[in-house]
């Protein structure tokens, strides 16, 4: 009996710690921002999994900035995906949407979660699905549930199942890590006593290219996530940096100083074949990024006297200037739908993230911090992850593409920088 109590206390502590770490600071800067109230009723039988799926689902949905969880009193008997829904009753609980479900243990020991999503305002079911998962993958299953709910209600794909990569610096030690999009389940890919910068995910999400200074100069590597094999793809005389994946996953744009200066080149991502130079200037040409249709390469260049964003046809060709306002516009990142360009702009000594609408040339600065770096779009284009400095410490934060929702990702200890949001995983 005392053992049981001790176990229960232990479990409670574990859960508390896990929740504290998962706590995200969400700041909604625009008071007019509408967050849709959603009731995610604890799934019948989910206690058997050991972690609350619905708590993770609710946290995910709230983190998107589009939803607000509605408190639900304990219901008896606990409703499941098969319970008939009384729309009027849920309306009176002020919910616009509802998720009901259950978890059963299968004969093979795995779990199955089944759930249904309802639109309470329109009084209509939106869809239902079931996922099978092991205890170890409960978090991943919950993210899947949140993705399904998000997509049924908003019509857009959710990004809760995606991963992020970033670099953590503790003193003189550097780690390239990957984690779930909520910052949980982090693991390191590379640990080094020299800096690591510029991680970028391959389009299919199984490789990460990055720059490591472990040989006392910048060298570009491709790291295979499945077998942790790493490959040198650019180690030419001079500096090798700023890798960017072409949408085909076979080509990398990189910046090399092998011919003098910093110029753009294309390489085969498997390290085979010869390098092809695609820029030809006396200036610094760097930070290449392919548009998602593969037609353009956006890049930073100081050919006009100050660093500005340009673009050129991806096979090489005449560059066109893209940014005009201000004297320091760098780190271009075209949005997944190709309509918007995120970049870092310097405003009276402050470095902030700006969005340029590529059709009407409107510019909007969407952050109010002063040392923002390395913006990275979520694969659905809704949020932008970035590195900033708060209280002298590097942290990751995320801002919605309309600038109204800002979040800070929790990481214990160290300077966190160089975020890269991974692609959708099927």
């Amino acid at each position, binding site marked *: 009996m005392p053992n049981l109590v001790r176990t229960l206390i232990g479990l409670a502590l574990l859960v508390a710690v896990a929740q504290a770490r998962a706590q995200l600071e969400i700041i909604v800067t625009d008071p007019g921002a509408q967050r849709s109230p959603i009731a995610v009723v604890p799934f019948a039988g989910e206690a058997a999994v050991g972690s609350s799926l619905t708590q993770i689902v609710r946290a995910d949905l709230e983190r998107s900035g589009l939803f607000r969880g509605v408190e639900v009193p304990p219901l008896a008997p606990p409703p499941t995906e098969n319970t008939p829904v009384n729309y009027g009753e849920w309306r009176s609980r002020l919910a616009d949407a509802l998720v009901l479900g259950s978890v059963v243990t299968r004969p093979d020991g795995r779990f199955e979660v089944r759930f249904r999503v309802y639109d309470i305002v329109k009084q209509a079911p939106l869809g239902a699905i079931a996922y099978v998962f092991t205890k170890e993958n409960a978090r991943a299953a919950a993210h899947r549930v949140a993705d399904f709910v998000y997509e049924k209600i908003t019509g857009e794909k959710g990004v809760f199942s995606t991963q992020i990569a970033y670099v953590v610096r503790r003193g003189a030690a550097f780690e390239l890590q990957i984690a779930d999009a909520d910052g949980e389940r982090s693991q390191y890919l590379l640990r080094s006593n020299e800096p690591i910068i510029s991680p970028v995910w391959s389009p299919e999400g199984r490789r990460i290219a990055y720059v490591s200074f472990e040989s006392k100069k910048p060298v570009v590597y491709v790291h295979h996530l499945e077998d942790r094999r790493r490959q040198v793809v650019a180690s030419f005389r001079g500096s090798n940096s700023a890798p960017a994946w072409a949408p085909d996953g076979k080509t990398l744009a990189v910046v090399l100083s092998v011919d003098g200066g910093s110029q753009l080149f294309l390489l085969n991502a498997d390290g085979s074949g010869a390098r092809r130079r695609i820029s030809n200037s006396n200036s*610094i040409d760097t930070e290449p990024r392919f548009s998602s249709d593969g037609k353009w390469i956006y890049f930073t260049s100081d050919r006009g006297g100050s660093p500005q964003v340009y673009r050129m046809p991806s096979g090489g060709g005449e560059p066109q200037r893209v940014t005009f306002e201000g004297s320091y516009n760098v780190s271009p990142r075209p949005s997944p739908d190709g309509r918007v360009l995120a970049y870092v702009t310097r405003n009276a000594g402050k470095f902030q993230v700006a969005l340029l609408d590529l059709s009407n040339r409107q510019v909007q600065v969407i952050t109010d911090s002063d040392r923002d770096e390395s913006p990275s779009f979520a694969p659905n284009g809704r949020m932008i992850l970035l590195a900033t400095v708060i209280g002298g410490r590097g942290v990751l934060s995320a801002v919605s593409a309309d600038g109204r929702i800002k979040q800070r990702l929790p990481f214990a200890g160290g300077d966190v920088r160089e975020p890269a949001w991974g692609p959708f995983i099927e």
Partner: protein
Amino acid sequence: MRAILIATLCAAGLLLGAGCSTTPEDQAAAGVEDRTGKPGAKPGADTRAVQPPKVAAVDVSKPSASSVSALKDPNSVLSKRSIYYDLDKFDVKDEFRSLVEAHAKYLRENPSARMMIQGNTDERGSREYNVGLGQRRSDGVKRMMVLLGARENQIESVSLGEEKPQADGHDEGAWSKNRRSDILYGGEY
């Protein structure tokens, strides 16, 4: 005189290996490494040291003992390894000219010596753009040394961007120490 002797021996096929190679890159690095790596080695006490003529050839191609120690001698300008820059500047300031000239002279007089120049910036702005700015600084030092008679293939100019600050602060005092080019010789990197 020595060079003529080596050239003659090479032509005669008497010296094999390092001394006659047309790719001096690797051997030079190895040579310098040997010296710095075994400071306590006593060549005279080692019976093998007097054997093959090949060893003698490698020794000849190495920097002379006096100049190697000059690289570390605090009284020698060669022990000065950092060139500092003004904000957004890439040219070597007059106060660092004699330093660059001394290193160029060393490279000229020690053809097998190899050098890496690492360009650095302060912490402000994009990390990758700063890699480009640091490269512009190290390329500038390299260009100057080549004009002063160093050979192009003796020097590799690279950039560490803002990643390896000398000072950790976040003000001009720290930034001015971080906008620099550092000179390293083969064996030091």
